[in-house]
């Protein structure tokens, strides 16, 4: 029997991989359809905008037009356009930027991605860890004063949007108290390098945007884990252990571990929203990441750049999703050992 069936771990990951790949294709298809389906040809509006500004010389304009015609594949049948679009996207050819013509969009996107990753990943992980721990303690002491205070503050903190918290932090800690710099990823005028003083400078610019993500994401995790722990405390194994006289610390350990499992999946599902929030936070802080590039692309209506950013962002979210699935499969014994599959 065992020889005929695949390892359940691999099977689970394979299924998830296939699902995410399918979803990524759908996302790519949406990116493809949108500019073509919406009335008011965006290509024409781009060109008319360039004409209006009148800065571009006719020759440059013609070459922009030719590039655009070619990259959007206009004039060809839609399925040819679609196949071209998908193969190009998979090859990493995301077209040419209009606002920074003739640079490739990928050239503009790659340098900003590390900034966003450095901002987003540590911040959401710290928020996840602190929030879940707080929530678990509150849930375990359900009904106590600590629980009520923690619950109510988390409820309110969880509703503060990242970006508004960012504005408050800039106003109070940067403008009023002048403790931290309030904008940019490093002091303007310095050239990024790997010296100690530059890294220190980056760190001081990092604290406020990161803090605004950590604080506002923390509340949601705390509430979720609290609820899961409260539900878990009703299980038979908890009362059984209590009757056996197991130490309360040990029981808390069991309950905490079981409550964390759904929160791991929650982490994967929250990534999209967290990324969206981080993009806006970057705009507030003029932080040199993907959000800031997207904002520039939006204000110049640089459609190829906007599309490119989306193709990359959605792909990174799915990669992260798959990574979380992988972790989940490792820590959930039901998947690891292939039990409980229905």
């Amino acid at each position, binding site marked *: 029997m065992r020889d005929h069936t695949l390892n359940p771990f691999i099977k689970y990951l394979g299924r998830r991989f296939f*699902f*995410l790949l*399918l*979803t990524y294709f*759908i*996302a790519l298809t*949406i*990116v493809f359809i*949108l*500019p073509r389906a*919406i009335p*008011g040809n*965006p290509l024409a*509006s781009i060109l008319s905008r360039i004409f209006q500004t009148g800065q571009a010389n006719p020759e440059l304009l013609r070459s922009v037009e030719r590039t655009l015609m070619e990259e959007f594949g206009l004039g060809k049948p839609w399925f040819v356009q679609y196949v071209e679009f998908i193969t190009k996207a998979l090859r990493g050819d995301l077209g040419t930027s209009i606002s920074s013509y003739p640079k490739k969009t990928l050239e503009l996107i790659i340098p900003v991605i590390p900034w966003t990753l450095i901002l987003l990943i540590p911040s959401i992980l710290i928020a996840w860890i602190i929030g879940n721990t707080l929530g678990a303690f509150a849930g375990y002491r359900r*009904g106590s004063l600590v629980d009520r205070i923690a619950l*109510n503050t988390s*409820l*309110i903190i*969880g*509703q*503060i*949007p990242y*970006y*508004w918290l960012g*504005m*408050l932090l*800039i*106003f109070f800690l*940067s*403008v*009023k108290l002048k403790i931290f710099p*309030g*904008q940019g990823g490093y002091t303007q005028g310095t050239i990024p390098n790997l010296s100690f003083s530059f890294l220190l400078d980056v760190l001081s610019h990092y604290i406020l945007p990161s803090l605004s993500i950590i604080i506002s994401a923390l509340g949601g995790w705390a509430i979720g884990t609290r609820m899961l722990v*409260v*539900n878990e405390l*009703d299980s038979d194994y908890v009362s059984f252990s209590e009757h056996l006289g197991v130490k309360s610390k040990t029981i808390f350990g069991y309950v905490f571990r079981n409550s964390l499992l759904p929160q791991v999946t929650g982490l994967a*599902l929250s*990534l*999209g*929203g967290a*990324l*969206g*929030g981080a*993009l*806006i936070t970057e*705009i*507030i802080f003029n932080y040199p990441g993907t959000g800031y590039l*997207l*904002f520039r692309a*939006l*204000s110049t*209506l640089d*459609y190829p750049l*906007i599309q490119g950013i*989306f193709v990359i*962002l*959605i792909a990174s*979210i*799915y990669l992260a*999703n798959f990574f979380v699935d992988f972790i989940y499969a490792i820590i959930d014994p039901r998947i690891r050992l292939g039990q409980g599959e229905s």
Partner: protein
Amino acid sequence: MFGTIFKPLFRNKKFIVAFSVFILIVLMGILGPILYPKDPTSFAGKMESPPSKEFPLGTDTYGGDLLAKLLNGIRTSLYIGFLTAVISMVIGLLIGSISAVKGGVVDDILMSFTNIVLTIPNILLAILVATYLKVRSAEVVAILLGVLGWPWFARAIRAQLLSLINREYVYLSRLAGYTDLQLAFEDLIPGIATYALMAFILFINGGILGEAGLSLIGLGPTKGVSLGIILQWAVLMEAVRRGLWWWFIPPGLIIVALTSSLLIVTTTMDEIFNPRLRER
């Protein structure tokens, strides 16, 4: 019957406080623009003046009266939140209940569709769609947010219904020859009503926060004032770094007060109606 349902709610202090805050803000949005009938878009006189008797919340760079903007903004944001909630609710209820009642292939197809929409990062997709729409009314923004927000609700409704469907009284109704639709409306929907009401409130929050987020990147409604649009202009005009606190603090406070009061309303409802959470 109405009394027995709502009485325990109004005995809960937390519920009363949160509900009053919510009603107060709703009244500000509905009556505010009537009681304080200044045009939020016109030039009121002074530029960037701090709160004074003449302008209780000060003015912005274009001399706009910020109190008038705030009151009208609350109105638009509430409207968008409400409309978003209606749209998400209808889609989620339809897909979740059809999936649960029909089962089989229909269930499989609808649930894979739901999972796909759930996994597509909806804020990013909303941003992408909004970039291609040159004119965005409040309704368009609400549709955009509503159409992307329903999946978790559809899944929850399906799960709830599946647990209800196996109860005895539903079995009896089936024997009595109820159609699927009758079954849904008479036996099942009443069983999920409080849950759906709570989800509705969460959708309102999602709509309000979503609008603010979209507006901040310049993709909110193209006409009118919303809470997000006030924040957007505050950011564009560097109000934060120039210390013009009266511009960006009030709209944010209202968003947080509105969404957290609604959330507290739902959690207290949950505590009261959900016997598993009731304190023992």
